[in-house]
């Protein structure tokens, strides 16, 4: 990787973190409605995986989608505007936190019923296979999604039809408040892929430098016609499942332990230690990100509400 690429990974992770910290504040102020599921702690996963994709590779994820949205290249201001329900939001204010998508960035959402997007991912990959596109569909989902039937139907079909899908399980160790061992028959989620005869790997997900090369190799395997591949990436979310989660299911010391493995801190140290960047450069980058986030908030706050006519727009393409 060139220096610019190394710095960009850092920039992305810091941007996601700052956008979400500001979003949490705006939520407390009542400016963001509904649910808000923060990705804080998991940044290295989607940053490592998505930075390894080619532009024609598709990305689809679950409702914890802000990090993915930023990593596919949606500007922070479009994400922030969507959180505030504005017309200028990436989904025109109709989707909110859980439903962001940008077709131009090959990002297919933002799906909020656990596991429901896995069958869609199989279909996206089928579309590419059918049309002879040399593209991979990257489907990200949590550990909780692997206990629902959709997961099993989709993963099975991907193998039966040899579909170009990279299944990425972001194992943050809790499905809402239920620990993996209390909900899943196997604690190593990758064993489920094993059951479908899909090549798989389980890696730690707090170090972007560990995630990125594994994702590159996995994408190459799928792209070369190897059929589906399954990555389990072990990570941790520092915040609650969504805002207002009392977190009775885990110990503060556990959270603290994982906070010491902060993906941004780890990567910061890596960049300095490997002499890829100087501390000043990283400080500078952080300041740029802070400014970008403040601009995003201003943009979102000053954007107009959707016009009343928007209520009836886009129910159908052809109104009969």
């Amino acid at each position, binding site marked *: 990787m060139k220096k610019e690429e190394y710095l960009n990974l850092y920039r992305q992770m810091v941007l996601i973190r700052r956008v979400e910290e500001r979003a949490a504040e705006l939520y407390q102020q009542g400016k963001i409605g509904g649910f808000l599921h923060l990705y804080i702690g998991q940044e290295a996963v989607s940053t490592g995986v998505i930075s390894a994709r080619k532009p024609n590779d598709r990305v689809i994820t679950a409702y914890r989608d802000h990090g993915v949205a930023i990593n596919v290249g949606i500007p922070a201001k479009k994400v922030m505007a969507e959180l505030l329900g504005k017309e200028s939001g990436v989904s025109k204010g*109709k989707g909110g936190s859980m439903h962001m998508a940008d077709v131009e960035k090959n990002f297919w959402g933002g799906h909020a019923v656990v596991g429901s997007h896995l069958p869609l991912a199989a*279909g996206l990959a089928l579309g590419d296979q059918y049309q002879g596109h040399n593209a991979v569909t990257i489907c990200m989902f949590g550990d909780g999604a692997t206990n629902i039937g959709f997961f099993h139907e989709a993963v099975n079909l991907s193998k039966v039809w040899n579909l170009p899908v990279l299944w990425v399980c972001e194992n943050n160790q809790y499905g809402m408040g239920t620990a993996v061992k209390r909900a899943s028959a196997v604690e190593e989620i990758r064993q489920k892929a094993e059951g479908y005869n899909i090549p798989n790997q389980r890696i730690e997900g707090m170090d972007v430098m560990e995630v990125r090369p594994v994702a590159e190799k996995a994408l190459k395997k799928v792209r070369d016609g190897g059929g589906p591949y399954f990555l389990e990436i072990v990570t941790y979310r520092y915040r609650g499942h969504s805002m207002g989660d009392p977190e009775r299911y885990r110990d503060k010391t556990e959270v603290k332990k994982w906070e010491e493995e902060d993906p941004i801190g780890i990567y910061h140290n890596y960049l300095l230690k490997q002499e890829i960047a100087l501390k000043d450069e990283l400080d500078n980058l952080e300041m740029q990100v802070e400014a970008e986030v403040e601009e995003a908030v201003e943009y979102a706050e000053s954007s107009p509400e959707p016009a009343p006519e928007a209520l009836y727009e886009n129910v159908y393409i052809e109104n009969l």
Partner: protein
Amino acid sequence: MARITMREAISQALWEEMERDERVFIMGEEVGVWGGTYAVTKGFYDHFGEKRVRDTPISEAVIVGSAIGAALTGLRPVAELMTINFAFVAMDHIVNEAAKLHYMFGGQFRLPLVIRAPGGGGRQLAATHSQTPDVIFAHFPGLKVVSPGTPADAKGMLKSAIRSDDPILFIENATLYQLRGEVPDGEYTTPLGKSRVHRPGRDVTIVTYSKMVDLSTKAAEQLSKDGIEAEIIDLRSLRPLDMEPVIESFKKTNRAVLVEEGWLSYGVGAEVAARIYEQALDYVDAPIKRVAQKEVPLPYNRNLEQMALPQVEDIVKAVKEVL
């Protein structure tokens, strides 16, 4: 005009659209090697090959879900559910995904998707395999729900559905596959979302769709012998619901009988009656009557099953009551 069965009409529509557009493909349980559980896709696998005639595992959620995904990439899948009763297994993908994605992502997503599914009772398949749950799906904005009652409409509407960019649930009736009817020669399509006058008449308006068009026609023929001329409106589409021909007819007859195969409560008849009262109250000369399935899960026993399903005599009786 050729006289063909409903099965042939649907099969022809699929065949013609697949010949016409490389992006159209079919997927579902036993659509390929088997030739379709109702033989609708017989011969397709040999002609079009396994890429375009795709046998799936018995996995309804991924049949519908992956068809949605494929549609998002620009393909035009026709996903077949062996029966509409299995649509419940794929409910999330029909109502939470197909019906929502275009709207929820601000108009970015296009889903040129057709889901075909036969329903209906009368074949002694008991409660889980005999339902007519059409209204459940018609409840959701974002989905289009159509259900033809004649071979001509089945062929023309399915071709329109395949060419449409919106997600469409195309509901067939398994006991209608042998029904014969005239079909126009050559290439034609039939617009979706339009009701039509199936049989003109002056005395009473019968509003119905799908299999009940045939039963209502038989009832009208009996009534005609008594000098009663019923006008039959075939809705053809439940969402959107085109009330124009219904209101026009009602303003002439001032009396209506609403006939559907599904259950009475919260049914098509309830919706149509409400709209007639809203739009043509001044023209009402008699309370509107509904004919529908009895409020029980359909039993296996032939006599009991027939007791629960709407019959020609029920329609005749209802018409006489509103006159």
